[in-house]
């Protein structure tokens, strides 16, 4: 049975009132290193009328470069749907393998937008960088402002004390490096030693951390508006400065010497502070920026490990290792003041 037919059969079970459920134009979307992503049209008959909806299927691959908890990702999207943080509507989460061989979820497709950051460096998008930057860090501030308890996310995300956020994250990603590195990483190891010797102050609040908030993980239009924040697979509770630090990681400047390739760093921080109601203490933010260089390197190293262990033999797992590891070293050296 084709993937279309199996998906249609699954959805038909989830929509018992619908008739003639069909999946059409199923096509894989490029990228997606942690999940396989497909778009498709769902057609069905309901209340005697022909109906259609554009949807997204996100399915776990046989091997992924990021070990993630799909329920947490699904619940994070669902928690923010309808809020000041734009996200697609989540429809169904399936955690068993039976239906489509691997766990997956189905979500609304936000249409009429772009996702590729490569488009941002040419017109008409060059003209709206300021608006996009303001939207990007305003939304990140809204995520930081959100209360996990009010969203119900404290029930699905492991809790952490305000003074333990940094150690939990650093220990986790250092563990990933220990397990996955194929070559010695002198710059990253030196950064880890510095981070442990100079811990940041306790978090101002324990909030929702997106975990991969950067240029390239949102849907945008030609007017500089953001219509969807994507890729919540690393969402967790922690210090909101962690997300700000990741968004400012030099590897996400795309070589443009601006925060996210879009706006001046000070402007991005000012917008985030205004929207979040929090302060970006320079020393604390520096710690989290350097931490995110370590985290980035751990992700690229994991990507190579997927290949080396005979997991996914897809170009998408090679590209981060080849293209990003030295760039991440350079980012680390830059944040530490050596470059």
């Amino acid at each position, binding site marked *: 049975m084709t993937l279309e037919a199996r998906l249609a059969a699954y959805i038909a079970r989830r929509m018992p009132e619908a008739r003639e459920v069909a999946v059409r134009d199923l096509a894989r979307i490029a990228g997606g290193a942690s999940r396989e992503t497909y778009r498709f049209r769902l057609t069905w008959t309901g209340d005697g009328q022909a109906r259609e909806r554009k949807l997204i299927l996100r399915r776990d691959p046989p091997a992924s470069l990021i070990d993630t908890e799909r329920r947490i990702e699904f619940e994070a999207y669902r928690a923010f749907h309808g809020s000041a943080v734009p996200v697609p509507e989540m429809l169904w989460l399936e955690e068993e393998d039976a239906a489509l061989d691997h766990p997956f979820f189905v979500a609304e497709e936000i249409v009429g937008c772009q996702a590729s950051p490569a488009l941002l460096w040419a017109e008409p998008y060059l003209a709206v960088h300021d608006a996009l930057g303001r939207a990007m860090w305003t939304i990140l501030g809204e995520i930081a402002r959100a209360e996990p308890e009010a969203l119900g996310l404290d029930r699905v995300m492991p809790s952490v004390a305000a003074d333990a956020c940094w150690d939990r994250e650093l220990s986790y990603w250092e563990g990933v490096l220990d397990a996955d590195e194929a*070559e*010695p990483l002198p710059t990253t190891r*030196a950064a880890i*030693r510095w981070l442990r010797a100079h811990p940041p102050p306790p978090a101002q609040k324990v909030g929702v951390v997106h975990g991969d908030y950067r240029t390239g993980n949102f849907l945008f239009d030609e007017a500089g508006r953001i219509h969807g924040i994507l890729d919540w697979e690393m969402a967790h509770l922690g210090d909101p400065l962690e997300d700000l630090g990741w968004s400012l990681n*030099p590897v996400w400047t795309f070589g443009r010497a601006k925060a996210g390739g879009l706006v001046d760093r000070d402007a991005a921080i000012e917008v985030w502070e205004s929207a979040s109601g929090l302060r970006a203490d320079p020393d604390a933010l520096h710690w989290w920026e350097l931490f995110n260089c370590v985290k980035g390197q751990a992700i690229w190293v994991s990507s190579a490990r997927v290949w080396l262990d005979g997991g996914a033999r897809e170009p998408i797992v090679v590209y981060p290792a080849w293209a990003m590891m030295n760039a991440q*070293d350079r980012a680390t050296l830059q944040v530490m003041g050596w*470059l």
Partner: protein
Amino acid sequence: MALVPKVPDVLAEMAGQMVRAADPAMPDAESASGLGLSALLLGLAAEMFDKAAHLLFTENRAVRALLGQGARTIPDAAFAGRLRALSHGVDEDLRVSALQAQNGVLRAALIELHIAAEGADGPAARALETAIWEELVDSSERRKLAGSPV
């Protein structure tokens, strides 16, 4: 620029994927997605192919010099002896895989030396620490790809 996974392994796998992508039964979107990323990797492989041996040879020589400096600076006699032995090495096999294996051994020792330098007192230790950081910067320059974002 990173050389893991190894370039020949990746090129061999990509060759197989391109054969499969050329199959008329392969859906267009899936085929285009795979080929686009494969093309990106081919570009990176082309850039690495020309300079990989030179950069590894240069880097191994630079790290050996640092290990020699470390052997003269670090008071731990056993560690200093190991550093001295590594510093006297020579790259006789110039295949990328051989240079890369040596590079791994040398950079692992460099990490140990960096930790020892950080923990040692005195101007010689500070000078060694600075020299290590300078080599890490130089290494990142050697390995920098044309399209690097940083």
